[in-house]
């Protein structure tokens, strides 16, 4: 080897820096373009005088978005659907994960494996029958219908994730509580859940982003504009008006904020407690 280990290490470090720079540009450029466009007036966005950055920043796109579109309604609907999905996923998954990790019964192994496979069941395969089923039970064009459908992918995933954490709690803690007269449900509520708060936070975070982002079920199960959520509501802005890129970028920016804020708050947990299969991508 002509190069010493020290100098080759130095080269790798420099090359790494250059690669990192390229990756940052690739990641940030579209986001920059979104923010810049949302702050420009139409003359700066369109036509020959299109600028690379807003020379006269304005909030007029945001005003248009809130005054002339259904965006507020979509935002409200998305919030309700996402929060309801989070709460139900937490309750259902905690109970299921506890049963699958701590209670001995026949069929436990099969159920735990089945759970993984239901998570891998793609929504593009299920949306057609689901549309018929949801329509037959009268839940088409309702947020309840959306929440119920979303539980189909949040519950398997959250249960799977929580199982990993529940196993790590020393069983002696639970046993001693039960000797002291605590019921199984009491053990789950007073000992297991408080000890797995970071895991619950991650589970809540994923349920929130998954339902906040969901597109395919929302497209087929909801046709009524008043029940639409952000992912199916905002793409329609393009069709409605060709000169709509300003307010559109304002709407994408605002729609990104809730998951982004939650991501910044939780990123410590996300990276330290990362489990595979955490996100769909």
């Amino acid at each position, binding site marked *: 080897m002509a190069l010493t*280990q020290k100098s080759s290490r130095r080269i790798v470090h420099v090359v*790494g820096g250059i690669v*990192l720079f390229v*990756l940052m540009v690739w*990641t940030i450029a579209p*986001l920059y*373009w979104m923010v810049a466009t949302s702050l420009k007036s139409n003359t700066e966005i369109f*036509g020959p005088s299109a600028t*690379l950055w807003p020379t006269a920043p304005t909030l007029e796109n945001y005003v248009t978005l809130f005054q002339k579109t259904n965006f507020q309604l979509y935002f409200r609907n998305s919030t309700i659907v996402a929060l309801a999905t989070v709460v139900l996923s937490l*309750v*259902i998954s905690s*109970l299921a994960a*506890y*049963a*699958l990790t701590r*209670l*001995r*019964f026949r069929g*436990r192994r099969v*159920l735990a494996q089945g759970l993984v496979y*239901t998570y*891998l*069941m*793609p*929504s*593009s*395969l*299920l*949306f*057609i*029958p689901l*549309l*018929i*089923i949801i329509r037959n039970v009268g839940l088409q064009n309702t947020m309840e219908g959306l929440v*119920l*459908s979303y539980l*189909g992918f949040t*519950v398997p995933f959250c*249960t799977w994730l929580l199982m990993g954490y529940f196993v790590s709690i020393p069983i002696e803690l639970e046993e001693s509580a039960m000797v002291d007269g605590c019921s*199984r449900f009491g053990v789950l509520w007073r000992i297991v859940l408080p000890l797995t708060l970071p895991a619950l936070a991650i589970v809540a975070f994923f349920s929130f982003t998954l339902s*906040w*982002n969901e597109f395919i079920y929302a*497209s*087929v199960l909801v046709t009524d504009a008043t029940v639409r959520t*952000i*992912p199916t509501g905002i*793409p329609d802005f393009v069709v409605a008006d060709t000169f709509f*890129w300003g307010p*559109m970028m304002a709407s*994408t920016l605002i*729609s*990104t904020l809730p*998951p982004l804020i*939650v991501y910044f708050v939780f990123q410590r947990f996300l*990276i330290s407690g*990362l489990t*595979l*299969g955490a*996100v769909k*991508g």
Partner: protein
Amino acid sequence: MSDLAQPIPRTQRSPGLWDRIANDARILAWIFLLPAIVVLIAVVIYPFAYAVVLSFQDKSPGIPGRFVGLNNYATLLSDTGFLETAVNTVWYTVIAVAIKFVIGIVSAVVLNQERRFNNVYRTILFIPWAVPTVVGALIWEWMYNEFNGLLNILLINLGLIETGIAWLAEPKLAMWAVIAVVVWTGTPFYTMHFLAGLQAIPKDLYEAAEIDGAGVIAQFWNVTIPSMMPVFTITVMLSTVFTATGITVVNILTNGAPAGMTQILPNESFNLTSAGQMGLGSAVNMVMFPFLVLFVVALTRRLLKDGNN
């Protein structure tokens, strides 16, 4: 009021039904699992069975399905457009997964190097993952805009092109433009898992390799790559399923245009369903499903083998 309720003597209650339920692990387990099982049967398992049945039916919204045997499958397999879409789907999935994989491992390795402000870089590279896919697709649609998109403005300013390119309408470019967006939104998934995998490799493996005289590159091939195999397998497995079946980016950017060049099977199924052909739409998915299952089973086996070694 009191005569409505059956008076239960206290002595019978203490070893009674409630305590038995609360202490019998089997009964309690099923009670705890009941909500999850009900939900999964209602929105995953029953719909899946129904999807299989639908693929043998002629079904329009509001009209009861009529069994037509293998007609839907025959229609699809004799349609050259369908076969092209199937080829597109494979091509799109393989290329997108491959690029995400390469950028993901490169990002993870670079983020794993010691550098100042590493937290900042990591946070930024993960941002596209927090951006809703629909939002990512819309931003890129605007980036690609023929007249006022950033991409064309930059290329014109740099003197590389004379007039703007319609990235999403050019037959030769459209699929690549779609894949670029899928890569942009999907790479953090890989970076995250690969970074976690890299950090889990014991340091002494590298030290041992160094004592044996292995350079940085030799260490990467002989230590990093073999240690990462299980992480690679599971990440690729999950991502392939989600990439192949994800319609959001294609649906928003092109919906299959130009001339079906960017069409993929799940979006074809979506379009057929929107047009009222639910049976045919289900058959499209059912053609795809066995391949996904084979892929998942093959990789799971591999993973179990790796796990045993």
